[in-house]
């Protein structure tokens, strides 16, 4: 795993507040006290119980992409407050400002170009630290724009989902982002370009019920919560406790809704293999009448 060493030696961008600062951390699942530096070397996977701790988009980029290959796009698309929404405690616009933490480009998803194993692709990584990775107009627009770019340049698409679902503060607009991203995906997939969907903890609601479940290949990190309704809602609806392991990655594999469970250490290799498979296929495929004859192949090396 030579690429792993490369990642570790990369200069570290400022750490997101996913984890409290400090030298020692406690695993939220098994309670093991973990040495921060070691945890980082282990890609934020608990060395005792293999709990995959949540990562920021920047961390995924560091783990997955070729060094220096990622370039952010669509960061200029930013939140507004179409409904002038306010709840019991505060205005939506204030909530957004707080979630930005001084970076106005920060939103529920980070999008851009990247390369994995030399293959160019369009990459979106959702950011749970921004209002639970919820999908409002900005997330929908950035993802739709990214898919459009991938379609125009005939690149593969990878979306790493991490979201509680729709952002209710934007009302009906947030619901419509499901239709928006799916409509763009319909165009992309009709052009026979590959979409690899990566599900992480959690992927639920309006995100799982739209693009996340529509990958040509769907992989998921171990132990992630993946489902339509949240466990609390289901528990309240049916009035009984849920079986253990319900809506976890392993459950979804068993029920036939994901292709493979891929531990974080193997994610880059898995994505590289799939990207190579699809780019080589595109090169080999003879074009049928139904697809535009101009450029049959997706961009390879």
């Amino acid at each position, binding site marked *: 795993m030579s690429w792993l060493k490369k990642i570790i030696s990369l200069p570290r961008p400022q750490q997101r507040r996913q984890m409290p600062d400090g030298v020692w951390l406690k695993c939220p699942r098994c309670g093991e006290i973990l040495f921060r530096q070691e945890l980082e070397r282990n890609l934020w996977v608990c060395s005792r119980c293999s709990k995959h701790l949540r990562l920021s988009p920047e961390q995924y980029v560091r783990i997955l992409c070729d060094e220096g290959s990622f370039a952010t796009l669509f960061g200029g698309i930013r*939140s507004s407050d179409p409904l002038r929404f306010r709840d019991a405690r505060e205005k939506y616009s204030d909530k957004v400002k707080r979630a930005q933490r001084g970076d106005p480009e920060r939103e529920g998803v980070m999008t851009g170009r990247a390369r994995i194993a030399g293959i160019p692709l369009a990459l979106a990584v959702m950011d749970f630290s921004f209002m639970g990775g919820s999908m409002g107009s900005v997330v929908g627009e950035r993802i739709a*724009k990214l898919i459009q770019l991938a379609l125009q340049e005939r690149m593969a698409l990878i979306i790493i989902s991490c979201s509680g679902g729709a952002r*209710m503060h934007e009302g009906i607009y947030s619901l419509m982002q499901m*239709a928006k991203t799916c409509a763009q995906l319909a165009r992309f997939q009709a052009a026979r370009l590959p979409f690899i969907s990566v599900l992480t903890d959690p992927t639920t*609601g309006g995100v799982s019920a*739209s693009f996340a479940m529509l990958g040509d290949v769907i992989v998921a990190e171990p132990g992630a919560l993946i489902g339509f309704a949240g466990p609390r809602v289901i528990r309240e609806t049916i009035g009984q406790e849920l079986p253990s392991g319900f809506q976890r990655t392993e459950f979804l594999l068993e029920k036939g809704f994901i292709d493979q469970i891929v531990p974080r250490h193997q994610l880059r290799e898995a994505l590289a293999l799939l990207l190579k498979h699809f780019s080589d296929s595109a090169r080999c495929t003879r074009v049928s009448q139904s697809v535009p004859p101009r450029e049959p192949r997706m961009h390879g090396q």
Partner: protein
Amino acid sequence: MPGGWLEFELPLVQLEQRIRDLQTLAGKQGPDVADELRSLERKADRLRRKIFSKLTPWERVKLARHPRRPYTLDYIQHLFTDFFELHGDRAFGDDAALIAGLGRFEGRPVAVVGHQKGRNTKENLRRNFGMPHPEGYRKALRVMKLAEKFGNPMLSFIDTPGAYPGIGAEERGQSEAIARSIREMSALKVPILVFVTGEGGSGGALAIGVGDRVYVLEYSFYSVISPEGCASILWKTREKAAQAAEALKFTAPELLKLGVIDQVLPEPPGGAHRDGAAMARTIGETIRGALAELDELTPEQLVERRQDRFLSMGVFDGGTSGKEIE
């Protein structure tokens, strides 16, 4: 809710009953009651205007969920001839919460899908209160593909609290079923007309809601989350549902203002439940007009415009257009 009437409409309903009683009486007696009838009818008009001219979002929610409100099968009965229901998703089972079928609209073959609620407890258990499982959405998609194959326009009637949140639904892939339906509907090569006739409950509604035209009945609503669900998360109590209903801006006139629907269809005085036949006539006229317009488009134009329509949805600052891409 005496007799299935809402509290705020009850005075009107009682007054109208008095008018009807008096009319029956007048059939037997002299002209004495004519004056009284006229004054009562004027009074009823005033009361109706008073109640319905300033409905709160929460009152509209109650109207949308009215136990007497016409459901999909009621509209089917009024609007289509030769209706033939199609059951089952061909993989797991049939879902009575979502019905599908073939029929004729003014002689023209069409396909229909729609949520179906029950009128009473027994029927609601069977219909699961109009909350579909994945097999319901897969049945709907199957019938949409059938419509596409034979070039039939699709008519979709939305009235659901949402897709069902349960163990079986998750086991059988509620997310996948909804996602697939949304994507496939966006690319379906026949005209699709969508009518939100009652509750437009989130993803469970949108799953059959990706249309060339989307109409919402005057007292219906269409929302990303139920007002109760929103209140329990953001106000920490379901008791604040009325406040959430205001904040979410999901009533028909607000949706029109936000630009996500094409038209608000006016309901008969007192709401669709007071005159289902009249409501169906309005829907019928709308179907006729819309199909005449959409018939002018090629299947490719239909799909492109439908996709463009949904691609344009959302409000944000900066970075519009494809500039950053160039």
